[in-house]
């Protein structure tokens, strides 16, 4: 049985339950998504765009889906403190794929800002949700359709016109279950005209005895003159896979920063589709992956310049150790008429062991002459001269290697605009290179699997 058919079967036999525990707007798209999956399969290795990542294999294990919305009794606010020192965030939690309601959340927020359950908002404010939900994600994409068919809840973040959020929003995704589980996650972010927000999303796994799969679709709308920063940090476990697709749309004069950091995971595939539909937009897309064990990290970006005077900048860096594998595919598309575009892309990779593998495919697709576009990709090792220099000054080889690897990652970390987060990330990366568990003060959770490898 193919991976897809087991989920289709689940939907066909439990459609009523799925719909009853969700909201009308989410249900509206379900059947069409189901229909579009007929005769389709999930991409496997070798499919164009999926050369090294088999989505089929990711979805193939018989994951449970919590269609009955059974609550897993976790008091997240007590047991979990994803602590970022010197940074005060508005924190919201998602356990598996359910939004955890909080009574204190709303007191902290500026007027009109919404951070809430997508299903709840779909009931309370249907016009707002309908305007955005499932309008941006590529519906003909099988993984989007699969998500749309099964999703019952998600998170909606809405920042109204002109509101400048002083404090960052932090969304903590936690996997914790007593059986292998697929979390069907959905995130809808709308930043209205002239508004400004920073969103920090982090993925964790609490109970890494079981296998988890996160199937995530994010839709991001950035209105004219708005500014949005998204930091997406994955620090789960070797038993957790993640298939995440981000679809963003930028209107004129807007700014978007997306920084995806993959520290610990099993198999990760991140898609970034960013459309610059208005002129004078600015986009920064950065990514970083540190791989060890048999970890596999695949980032796939597609930035489409559809209007004039926009610029985009992409930087992806990988350090791959042990038997880990990495893949990167990035496309810059400049449409006919999108004059005065500046688009840059860079992918740099370090292979730290014999068995590590890297696959890179940067692409430029340009239908216009007045552009400045470039991309660069390198794959190599640590600079032998630098290593020798350090060792000749008494730094042990392992230490020197770690320092150089850390230094290699600095420019991605420096793209983080929040001071507190940047320091924290630097610390996490350092710990990661030393193979240590990254735990926060007072936190009852071990983010990394103690029995690693």
């Amino acid at each position, binding site marked *: 049985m193919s991976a897809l058919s087991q989920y289709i079967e689940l939907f066909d036999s439990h459609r009523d339950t799925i719909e009853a525990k969700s909201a009308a707007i989410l249900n509206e798209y379900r059947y069409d998504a189901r229909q579009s999956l007929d005769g389709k399969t999930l991409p496997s290795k070798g499919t*164009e765009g999926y*050369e090294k990542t088999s989505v089929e294999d990711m979805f193939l294990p018989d994951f449970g889906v919590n269609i009955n919305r059974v609550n897993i009794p976790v008091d997240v606010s007590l047991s979990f403190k994803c602590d970022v020192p010197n940074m005060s965030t508005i924190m919201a939690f998602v356990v598996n794929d359910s939004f955890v309601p909080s009574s204190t959340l709303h007191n902290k927020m500026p007027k009109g800002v919404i951070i809430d359950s997508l299903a709840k908002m779909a009931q309370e404010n249907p016009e707002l949700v309908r305007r955005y939900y499932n309008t941006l994600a590529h519906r003909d994409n099988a993984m989007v359709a699969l998500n749309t068919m099964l999703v019952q809840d998600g998170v909606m973040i809405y920042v109204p016109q002109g509101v400048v959020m002083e404090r960052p929003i932090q969304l903590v995704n936690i996997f914790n279950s007593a059986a292998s589980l697929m979390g069907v996650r959905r995130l809808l972010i709308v930043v209205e005209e002239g508004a400004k927000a920073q969103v920090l999303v982090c993925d964790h796994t609490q109970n890494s005895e079981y296998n988890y799969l996160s199937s995530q679709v994010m839709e991001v709308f950035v209105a004219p003159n708005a500014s949005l920063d998204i930091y997406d940090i994955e620090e789960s476990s070797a038993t957790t896979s993640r298939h995440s697709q981000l679809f963003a749309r930028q209107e004129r004069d807007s700014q978007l920063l997306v920084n995806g950091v993959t520290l610990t995971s099993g198999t990760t595939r991140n898609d970034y589709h960013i459309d610059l539909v208005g002129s004078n937009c600015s986009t920064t897309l950065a990514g970083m992956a540190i791989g060890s064990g048999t970890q596999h990290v695949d980032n796939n970006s597609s930035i489409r310049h559809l209007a004039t005077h926009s610029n985009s900048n992409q930087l992806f860096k990988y350090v791959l150790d042990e038997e880990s594998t990495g893949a990167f595919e990035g496309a810059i598309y400049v449409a*006919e*008429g999108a*004059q005065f575009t500046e688009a840059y892309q860079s992918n740099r*990779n370090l*292979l*730290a*062991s*014999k*068995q*590590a*593998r*890297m*696959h*890179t*495919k*940067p*692409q*430029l*697709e*340009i*239908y*216009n*002459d*007045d*552009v*400045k*576009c*470039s*991309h*660069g*990709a*390198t*794959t*190599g*090792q640590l600079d032998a001269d630098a290593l020798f220099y350090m060792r000749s000054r008494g730094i042990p080889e392992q230490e020197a290697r770690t320092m150089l690897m850390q230094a290699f990652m600095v420019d991605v970390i420096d793209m983080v605009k929040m001071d507190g987060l940047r320091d924290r990330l630097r610390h996490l990366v350092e710990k990661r290179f030393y193979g240590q568990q990254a735990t926060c003060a007072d936190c009852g959770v071990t983010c990394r699997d103690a029995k690693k490898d």
Partner: protein
Amino acid sequence: MKESEKDKNKKIPTNDDIINDVTTSEYKYGFVTDIDTDIIPQGLNEDVVRLISQKKGEPEWLLDFRLKAFRHWLTLEVPTWAHLDIPEIDFQAISYYAAPKKKEGPKSFDEVDPELLDTFNKLGIPLEEQKVLSGMAVDAVMDSVSVKTTHKEKLAELGIIFCSFSEAVRDYPDLVKRYLGSVVSYRDNFYAALNSAVFSDGSFVYIPKGVHCPMELSTYFRINASGTGQFERTLIVADDDAYVSYLEGCTAPMRDENQLHAAIVEIIVEDRAEVKYSTVQNWYAGDKDGRGGVYNFVTKRGLCRGDNSKLSWTQVETGSAITWKYPSCVLSGDGAVGEFYSVAVTNNRQQADTGTKMIHTGRNTRSTIVSKGISAGYSQNSYRGLVKVAPNADGCRNYTQCDSLLLGSHCGAHTFPYIDVLNDTAVVEHEATTSKISEDQIFYCNQRGIPTEEAVALIVNGYAKEVMNKLPMEFAVEAQKLLQITLEGSVG
């Protein structure tokens, strides 16, 4: 015409004007030679394959090879992955064999059809005796049948074999048998299978051990008869310590319908040998609305089998309506070197999807890729390349640079590099840029009294220089001219 126009308007042409002028440029090789041709009816089936083999008087083993390829071809589908808009090709509407009619085979040079000689004179090929002094050995292939090879005797003294493919099959069956299909198997791809089934002729080169070929070897390909396809095969073998530089030129007459060209080039490079393969491809590109032109679907691959062997591809691609071509190097000998230098120019409605593959399977192998794309008019120009480092290939090095220059706002330039590194000691670099000729550069030239049109020519030439420098002298001059004809119209 340009001059008078300028006088009338008293205006310095802008960039766009110059680019518009391009459409007025003519394809100077667009003549048809009225020559008796032996064409078999259109269509393709096993009988046609047998007929071709029979017409060429081939041995049994070659017919078997053809039939195997043909049967495999039937199971394949037309590849669609390239960034090309290829109209559906009716493979049954093509004649798979067209040869200048032989009157009992010319025994001496005088017996060669004068019309034919005239054609080659027009092309400026030093085929005639008087041009022997120019010191180039030429194998001219017209409608895929080799017509005449010059300098054969002189080469034979050194033990070099340079002849048409059919002669090689007749005279050196063991060599052909050993190497045919060893680099490009008939199972390789759709067009390779087609070629393996119906190839009519081509060139065969064998350089024995330790021989440094004293002259450039050259082949000129020309499609003449209408409604035919050209399917030639080139096989080059450089034995230990040998060296050869090989040139290939292509032209075709102007026709309204599209012509298919599906060739295979196989190169085998043994220990410490070096092969330099240069192409100036100027097939008819179609008119400015994209009518007619040659479909150029070519499989070229070299196997650097020996240690410290070297293969260098240089290509200047200015012609063809559609180009689908990826000259590759398989670097399996330790310390082997692969090089790829390319200038691809597209104009009007031309489409090109071209690049290279560098497959590193030997230790300490090195490769360099320099690709320069120039697109103008409504054309689409893509670079597609693969750099692969195998798990056991320690110490490999690759440097890739692909630049695109856009002239005009309706054309497209695309880059699709695939980089696959399976070894941690490899250093692989890829760089690509896309830009247009900047106002600053033009302004700088104008300031110094260089008119805009000349400035564009100057900048384009400078841009392509890195690759042009790699061409042998004889070709460099021609290629430079071609570049100007193709791009700059009345300029230059």
